[in-house]
């Protein structure tokens, strides 16, 4: 057994023929008790739509206040300002325990009507612009600006709040966002390595999810981070791996050490029973690091990676 704690996420979906809302609640309760770092909440299940993952996270975080959540969402059909608001709202409500796994995709009806460059149609490029824009929106209203000075009738110091004035190839967004920054500086951004290039991942993500059987992920990520001027410790590399309900920790710890992974995303067998068995029996053998005091901390990331904004801007 490992003596060092590691980030351990468990992947589930609410609705869409997977967990019912009541089952998801039981799974989240068990996950919090077992010290799981976060539940990853899928936003689609094959062709089927699940309960929208930021809302599923908002709901479950309202019942389990020490558990982290990583909600999937895509650029498709989500105007950046709207998704930025939803994710920051949940992150603030959950006291800094939310991450977003942002999938590359197409645009949304509202933004498409005013796309600055109508010839721009590359999903990876769109993702990079979108991820950078989210980070800037999330930092546009620092919570230090909150004064609450009733005596002088000054609620906020608006000199500290700045519009983002974003004008890219895909989006034009004025900002600032309506809510102050969260406890973890800003929500965690994760991405799936199967969907993006290494340089895009290295520039825009705090967390990269790879297939745990893939041996070259760590080296590819390190090289890309060096190219874009970020440190290896700025990004957590998580290996995603399907597990059986009765499985021991051996194979997983081998993958972790052998493939130089920082943590794991466990994919339990279908249904509530499979998820509960994995959480109750397998997870404790892995010494998980809970999302304490924030998801960013549970993932072993630096408290605020302000360099991300600079790198992308």
């Amino acid at each position, binding site marked *: 057994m490992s003596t060092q704690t590691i980030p351990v996420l468990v992947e589930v979906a609410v*609705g869409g023929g997977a967990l019912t*809302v009541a089952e998801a609640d039981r799974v989240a309760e068990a996950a919090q008790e077992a010290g799981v770092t976060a539940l990853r909440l899928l936003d689609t299940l094959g062709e089927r*739509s699940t*309960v*929208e993952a*930021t*809302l*599923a996270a*908002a*709901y*479950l*975080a*309202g*019942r389990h206040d020490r558990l982290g959540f990583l909600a999937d969402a895509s650029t498709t*059909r*989500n*105007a950046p*300002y*709207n998704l930025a*608001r*939803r994710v*920051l*709202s*949940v992150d*603030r*409500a959950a006291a800094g325990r939310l991450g977003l796994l942002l999938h590359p995709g197409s645009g*949304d*009806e*509202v*933004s498409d*009507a*005013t*796309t*600055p460059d109508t010839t721009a149609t590359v999903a990876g490029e769109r993702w990079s612009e979108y991820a950078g824009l989210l980070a800037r929106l999330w930092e*546009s*209203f620092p919570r230090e600006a*909150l004064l*609450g*000075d*009733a005596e002088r*009738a*000054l*609620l*906020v110091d*608006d000199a500290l*709040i700045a519009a983002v004035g974003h004008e890219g190839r895909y*989006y*034009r*967004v*004025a*900002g*600032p*966002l*309506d*809510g*102050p920054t969260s406890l973890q500086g800003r929500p965690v951004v994760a991405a799936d390595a199967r969907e993006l290039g290494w340089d895009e991942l290295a520039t825009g993500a705090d967390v990269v999810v790879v297939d745990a059987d893939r041996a070259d992920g760590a080296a590819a990520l390190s090289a890309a981070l060096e190219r874009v001027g970020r440190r290896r410790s700025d990004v957590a590399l998580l290996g995603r791996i399907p597990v059986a309900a009765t499985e021991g920790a051996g194979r997983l710890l081998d993958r972790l050490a052998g493939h130089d992974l920082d943590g794991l995303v466990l994919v339990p067998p279908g249904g509530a029973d499979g998820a509960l068995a994995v959480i109750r029996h397998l997870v404790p053998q892995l010494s998980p690091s809970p999302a304490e005091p924030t998801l960013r901390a549970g993932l072993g990331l630096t408290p605020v990676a302000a360099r991300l904004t600079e790198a992308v801007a």
Partner: protein
Amino acid sequence: MSAQLHLNVNILNAGVFGGSWRFPGTDPLASFSIDHYTSIARKAEAAKLDAVFLADTPVLDPQLRHRPGNSFEPTTVLARIAAQTERIGLIGTLSSSYNDPAELGRRLGDLDLLSGGRFGWNVVTTAGPVAAANFGRLGEPEHALRYRRAAEMVEQVVATWDERADSPQGRPVVVQAGGSTDGKRLASRVGEVIFSAEQDLAKAVAFRTELRAGAREWGRSPEELVVLPGVSTVLGSTEAEARERREVLDDVLPQAYARQRLAGQLGFSLEGLDDDASIPAELLHDPDRVGGTTQTFYRIVRDIIECENPTLRQLLRKLGGGGGHRIVVGTPEQVADDLETWFRQGAADGFNVMPDVLPSGFDEFVDHLVPELQRRGLFRTEYTGTTLREHLGLGLPGVPSGVWDRSPLEAAR
């Protein structure tokens, strides 16, 4: 009309007045904390209210220096409230102009599922260039075009809800506000709960009568409409105490804010106007031709000016830095008399309540006014259903189609 009235609480951050956040004993920053919303919702449920209501505009309020705006996205707040309550209805405001129809329909249907059939969608078209700029636009879409898109979007969203068949209430309730000509047309066609902002009993009766007649023209029963005027309550255990509370709210109103807000509502600058003179009539316009502002509140303020001819100072005081909704000041018995009159005279099926200060004004409301209404038999003492539709006494209407003539919209594309 049903025998009992309906009550929602509008959790308008620190309260409806411009100075609510500075009211003695109030934590000025409370509305930036999620617990502010969830604890008020739990109290509303304990008092058996129909629903909590969240207003929304997807912007950072440019007036934030002087008063709080909303700082949380409504569907995520309502999902959290759903997790911590069992019965209370959940009404959220979502823009028809600045959301993708397929995404919005799916997400709102999901919120209805998460909450066990307690959700209602307040459809707004979202006025103003500040919001437009967060969605790539250099200016806001024209008023009539915004309403055509809203009609088209409601039709599309309701159709997606109808296909899912997983809602305990059949599908979410469609809520609509807006006193403009376009707004009333949309409300009478598809609205189930209608918010209004009338100040005057006779006008409120006329508004409700007009909407019910409009619904009939569309082949709907007037009983499918629940009309809820907004009302701001200022309560005291004696009349003098209530008046004093109202005075304090005026004293703590940030003046710079009140003037900017009124200028925004009227669409012209107040600079150079004498505080002790009335507003020059030549500055006022026809409400349907006002751009860059919410027509409903322009109308309200214009009506006050025309009926009462106040000085600028008196007008600022009367509005209190609030939206322009009606303000009722008094003891629980006096305020109950007022609400009962509006209900019995056909001006209202209930009220969208905007407490003067949150949470203290809502505590007064649930501790003293709700019991008074219950004593009179005007308000429920227990929930009889579990869904928002059941609380409101609404059945499941047919799915609207052909809500708007599409040709002008297509031509504008």
